[in-house]
């Protein structure tokens, strides 16, 4: 008998966060991530931990910022338009260097769009919707199990580098149920970690802020953030390459990568050799690994549930070594494996 439990993505990510020692959750409801906030509203208070349904997304992310500045393990979750509202504080958090985990269960956009699964926030997550030079770590899980494992680990990564970490899922991942193996429960992670704001009695005061007015201070800080992200790139970049022998390489992340896996199986039955390159961190993007993998292919196909966002990173990585084609499915919809199969046959001419 399997020890796995059947859980919806939203609930499973929430449970993984609690098991990672989450001390505080601050959020505001929005479809398709509602089960997330709902799950937290039951389970955080039951453990005597902080749960706040804020009056807006702007309030929620600023509560995260404030609580994170004390060194406690905290998070929020939302969906695309809600995440858009949070961008100012996310920029502040990157500037002030505080750890937190932010989950975006993407829906169709722009604007309120619709509630279907989408990958339209790739640019928002990897380029930053807030002001200034900053980058975050962005994980793009493609199964509920992977979402659980990455989220559980994301809190440690966030603490290690003092940086917000994004979990970028979509409506399909959030709403889908799959059997998952849940990780061990850690104790609640509270405390100032040696840098947080915990009252200055008996020690020098500390400042956690993004404002740096002294001459040359911000310039140095900007370059420090760059070197920090170089270390992150070196140590934390993750990807999956499904095969070693292929003519066509499909680059896809999250839910579209799953669809591509089915297409690859269908193509194999028809004697066409295709493999999947799946960035697990879309920021830092696995440029070097993709460049290497693309060399073995005759063509690369980028498949995304948007109008072509990761496409740019793939082109940067491939550097014209082989032709890169694109198929997109925006608007809160997903393509079928058959559509990818047909596109690849067409590419093979």
């Amino acid at each position: 008998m399997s020890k796995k439990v059947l859980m919806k993505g939203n609930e499973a990510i929430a449970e993984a966060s609690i098991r990672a020692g989450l001390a505080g959750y601050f959020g505001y409801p929005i479809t398709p991530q509602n089960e997330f906030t709902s799950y937290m509203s039951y389970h955080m208070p039951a453990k005597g931990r902080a749960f706040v349904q804020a009056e807006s997304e702007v309030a929620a992310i600023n509560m995260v910022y404030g609580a994170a500045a004390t060194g406690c393990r905290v998070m929020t979750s939302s969906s695309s338009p809600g995440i858009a509202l949070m961008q100012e504080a996310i920029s502040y958090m990157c500037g002030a260097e505080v750890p937190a985990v932010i989950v975006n269960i993407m829906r169709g956009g722009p604007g309120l769009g619709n509630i279907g699964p989408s990958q339209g926030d790739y640019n928002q997550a990897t380029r930053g919707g807030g002001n200034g030079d900053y980058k975050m770590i962005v994980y793009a899980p493609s199964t509920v199990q992977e979402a659980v494992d990455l989220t559980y680990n994301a809190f440690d990564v966030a603490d290690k580098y003092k940086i917000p970490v994004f979990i970028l899922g979509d409506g399909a991942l959030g709403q889908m149920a799959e059997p998952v193996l849940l990780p061990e429960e850690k104790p609640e992670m509270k405390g100032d970690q040696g840098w947080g704001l915990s009252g200055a009695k008996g020690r020098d005061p500390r400042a956690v802020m993004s404002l740096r007015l002294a001459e040359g201070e911000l310039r140095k800080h900007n370059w420090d953030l760059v070197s920090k992200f170089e270390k992150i790139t070196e140590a934390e970049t993750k990807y999956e390459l499904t095969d070693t022998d292929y003519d066509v390489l499909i680059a896809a992340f999250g839910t579209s990568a799953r669809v591509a896996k089915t297409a690859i199986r269908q193509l194999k039955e028809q004697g066409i050799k295709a493999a999947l390159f799946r960035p697990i961190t879309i920021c830092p993007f696995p440029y070097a690994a993709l460049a290497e993998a693309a060399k073995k292919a005759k063509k690369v196909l980028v498949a995304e549930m948007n109008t072509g966002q990761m496409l740019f990173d793939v082109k940067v990585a491939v550097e014209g070594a082989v032709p890169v084609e694109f198929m997109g499915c925006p608007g809160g919809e997903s393509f079928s494996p058959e559509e990818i199969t047909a596109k690849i046959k067409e590419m093979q001419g």
Partner: protein
Amino acid sequence: MIFESVMAGFGGQGILSAGMMLAHIASHKGLNVTWFPSYGAEQRGGTANCTVVISDLEIGSPIVTAPAYGLIMNMPSFNKFQPRFRKGAKAVLDTTLVDPSAVTRTDVEFYGLSAGDIARDLGNVKVANMVMIGGLLAVSGLFTLDEAVIELPNALSKKHHDLIPLNEQALSKGFSEIKKIN
């Protein structure tokens, strides 16, 4: 092995729970499974549907465009999904609400169960979904009736555990009373 199915009906008929029931059995047996619901405005009184994929291999897409199995509990869902079934698919219809004379596909095997009526005779119309699952198990050979029955305590929330015997009867009735339509 790969089992790709769609379940559809009105919101409130227990379509999503029916899909969850299959997912629980599959998970219990150590198989891979994805259950993906329609979660839009449609679940509020309109049509509701979910796709369930079960396999011993890694499951790629949770989205099923051409299902091999179906469980259809109302007419709008039948009209929507009849054209989408793949050749050789098997689908169970609740003939309480789906008119069997609307069947036009000859390359799909349709089976009928008057699930609504059977459930009402059992004393609770809400178990019509379980009658349908019983029928789908018989038609697909996916799991045995016993494998389904032992999973009822996990599939039903604790507040409904007094209804386990009734659900067991519903599964069993569906399993035995399913009839081929075309």
